């Protein structure tokens, strides 16, 4: 609680107690009025002063003015009529209580969101000639050596020069499994060092480091306003004057008509109803709850490593109908691995050994994946007379045998008994002394969560899933079938991807958004072209963070459906709040005009609704973990 909140709470309690006590003191007329003025002024003095200032500055339509007019009006009616001062005080009391709740709830949510984003390191331990010095991260230059002890947060992006440790990345990615780092590994700011001491050479300035970029992104997010937020702002601008004018009309026109018809104007009754209008006229429930819902939604998503760059993107994402995926690095791991060894006249080990031996001096990705699979099981035999046949493969002499390792063209020229394989992926054939002995399939591994992610997407209401890839048709079709994608376009150049995305956007239904998910490498133009660009695995990749609208900190495709789920929930809450607030106010206005609603109900329509809307908005912070 802030000082102001404490003070206001005391005011509320004191004036409420006084009001209740005074009801039982039997004094009359002016004494009674003077007595009730005490709690009224205690609870309302600041409102009255503000209202007066508003009038002086020609800004009369603020809520203080409305509350002042309504309660002073109620006081006058009480003095001239029934002597019930309680109502005016109660209205002021309720109003202040509601304001208090609002300020408390907003403060709480502000804090819980900033706690969520509490990844900003306070200092960096800079290594100097005479020991370590705690320095403001902003003053650390590139290439400085900093020391991170166990339990400390990495302040600046850099490379480990000594030490090894487990890093807790959960603040950035929502991933709870720690990551191990060793000498030579890149580390990003915001992670917490779990165990050992790390010495890190910084590679970036603090302001360009991951942590600063993320914080900036999240803080700017609520400045990019959604359609619903602009609607509410526009609505509020019209709503208050309209209600105030209606109140004025209600105070004047019906009494005049009634005077003409029956000779009885009933001024007090109509003015009371008009005052009720004034109480309801404040738009605050709407103006606060909608941005708060978005803010909480963005905060809740951030907690799970999903950075949404603006409320408008959150709104757009909730309408997603088509999701387009890039293949390599998005649905697949983007690393080639040996997936199958198919010997034909040799043993599996023999086949792998010969292929690996022939390729051992090559730096080609295929060679590397063969060597990786072989993994130094035994010492590789020497390869002699190694020669590369351009576009076909490699030939070499290993021991006494002549070995060919390459594609089908190489086999057709060099091997007997060769049967081409119909496997998808890259197939490497091997022959020994002119005899075909089998093949090895190398392909990009599909991520464990990809199939599940696509199923989840369908569950959240995505109608169509598409994969775009530069890979061969065979490999693309095989992956698509495994994953259950609706459409596949393969053998594409980067510009084809942009064109196809444009076509898909054109063809997709109105009011439906097209999402593109990529790993941020080479697909920046497509990320921009799509309605929503999601970059994944973006820890540290500047281009991806720049080009996309939503950034997934890790590379788990399941997060896409999580993000869509969050956006849907957020929009649902926003809609609930809009309709609930406007609905209750409209009903109370009608009841007030007809004389069924007194000022107590009006105050509920104002502050009660606001508190409920704020509490509803806070639901966005609670996100189910999957």
């Amino acid at each position, binding site marked *: 609680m802030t000082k102001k909140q404490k003070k206001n709470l005391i005011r509320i309690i004191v004036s409420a107690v006084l009001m209740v006590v005074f009801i039982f003191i039997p004094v009359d007329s002016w004494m009674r009025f003077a007595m009730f003025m005490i709690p009224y002024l205690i609870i309302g003095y600041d409102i009255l002063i*503000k209202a007066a*200032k*508003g009038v002086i*500055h020609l*800004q009369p339509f*603020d*809520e203080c003015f409305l509350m002042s007019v309504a309660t002073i009006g109620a006081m006058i009616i009480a003095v001239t009529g029934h002597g019930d001062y309680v109502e005016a005080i109660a209205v002021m009391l309720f109003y202040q209580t509601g*304001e208090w709740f*609002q*300020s408390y709830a*907003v403060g709480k*949510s*502000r804090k819980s*969101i900033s706690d969520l984003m509490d990844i900003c390191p306070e200092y960096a331990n800079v290594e100097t000639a005479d020991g370590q010095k705690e320095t403001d991260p902003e003053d650390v230059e590139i290439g400085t050596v900093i020391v991170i002890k166990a339990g400390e947060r990495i302040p600046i992006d850099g490379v480990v020069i000594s030490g090894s440790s487990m890093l807790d990345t959960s603040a950035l990615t929502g991933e709870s499994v720690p990551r191990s780092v060793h000498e030579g590994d890149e580390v990003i700011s915001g992670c917490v060092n779990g165990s050992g001491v790390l010495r890190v050479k910084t590679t970036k300035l603090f302001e360009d480091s991951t942590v600063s970029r993320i914080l900036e992104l999240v*803080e700017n997010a*609520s*400045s990019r306003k959604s359609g619903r937020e602009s609607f509410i*702002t526009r609505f*509020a601008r019209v709503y208050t004057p309209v209600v105030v004018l209606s109140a004025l009309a209600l105070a004047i026109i019906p009494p005049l008509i009634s005077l003409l018809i029956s000779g009885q104007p009933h001024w007090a009754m109509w003015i009371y109803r008009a005052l009720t209008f004034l109480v309801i006229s*404040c*738009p*605050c429930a709407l*103006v*606060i709850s909608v*941005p*708060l819902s978005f*803010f909480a939604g963005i905060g809740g998503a951030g907690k799970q490593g999903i950075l949404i760059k603006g409320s408008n993107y959150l709104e757009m994402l909730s309408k997603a109908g088509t999701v387009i995926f890039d293949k390599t690095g998005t649905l697949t791991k983007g690393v080639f691995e040996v997936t199958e060894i198919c010997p034909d006249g040799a043993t599996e080990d023999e086949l792998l050994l010969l292929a690996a031996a022939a390729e051992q001096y090559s730096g080609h990705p295929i060679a590397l994946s063969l060597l990786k699979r072989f993994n130094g099981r035994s010492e590789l035999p020497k390869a002699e007379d190694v020669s590369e046949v351009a576009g076909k493969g490699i030939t070499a002499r290993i021991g006494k045998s002549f070995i060919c390792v390459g594609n089908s063209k190489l086999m057709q020229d060099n091997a007997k008994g060769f049967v081409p394989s119909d496997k998808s992926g890259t197939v490497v054939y091997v022959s020994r002394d002119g005899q075909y002995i089998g093949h090895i399939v190398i392909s990009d591994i599909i991520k464990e969560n990809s199939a599940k992610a696509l199923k989840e997407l369908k569950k959240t209401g995505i109608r169509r899933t598409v994969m775009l890839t530069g890979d061969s048709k065979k490999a693309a079709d095989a992956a698509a079938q495994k994953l259950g994608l609706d459409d596949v376009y393969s053998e594409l150049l980067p510009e084809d991807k942009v064109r196809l995305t444009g076509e898909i956007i054109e063809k997709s239904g109105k009011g439906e958004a097209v999402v593109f998910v990529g790993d941020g490498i080479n697909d920046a133009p497509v990320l921009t072209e799509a309605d929503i660009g999601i970059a994944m695995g973006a820890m540290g990749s500047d281009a991806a963070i720049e080009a996309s609208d939503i950034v997934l900190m890790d590379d788990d495709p399941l997060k896409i459906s999580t993000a869509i789920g969050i956006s849907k929930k957020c929009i649902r809450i926003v809609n609930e709040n809009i309709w609930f607030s406007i609905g209750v106010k409209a009903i109370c206005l009608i009841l007030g005009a007809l004389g069924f609603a007194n000022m107590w109900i009006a105050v509920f329509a104002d502050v009660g609704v606001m508190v409920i809307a704020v509490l509803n908005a806070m639901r966005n912070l609670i996100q189910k973990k999957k």
Partner: protein
Amino acid sequence: MKKTYKIEVDCANCAAKMEEAAKKVEGVADCTVNFMTLKMKVEFKEGFDEQKVMDDVFKACRKIEPDCVIAYK
């Protein structure tokens, strides 16, 4: 040039009104007030002194919301 200032204001509607008022001040190219983070982002026009412009912005906001605070000094 863009600058961000911390602000203090009680209600969301008032924050929206402050934004409107600040946009009308001479020397301000654009302004966004974020009630949730309590921050005011001001983009200044070329050739204006930022302190002087902020004086005017502060005055304009005070007129609308007498107890608002902008930390710009």
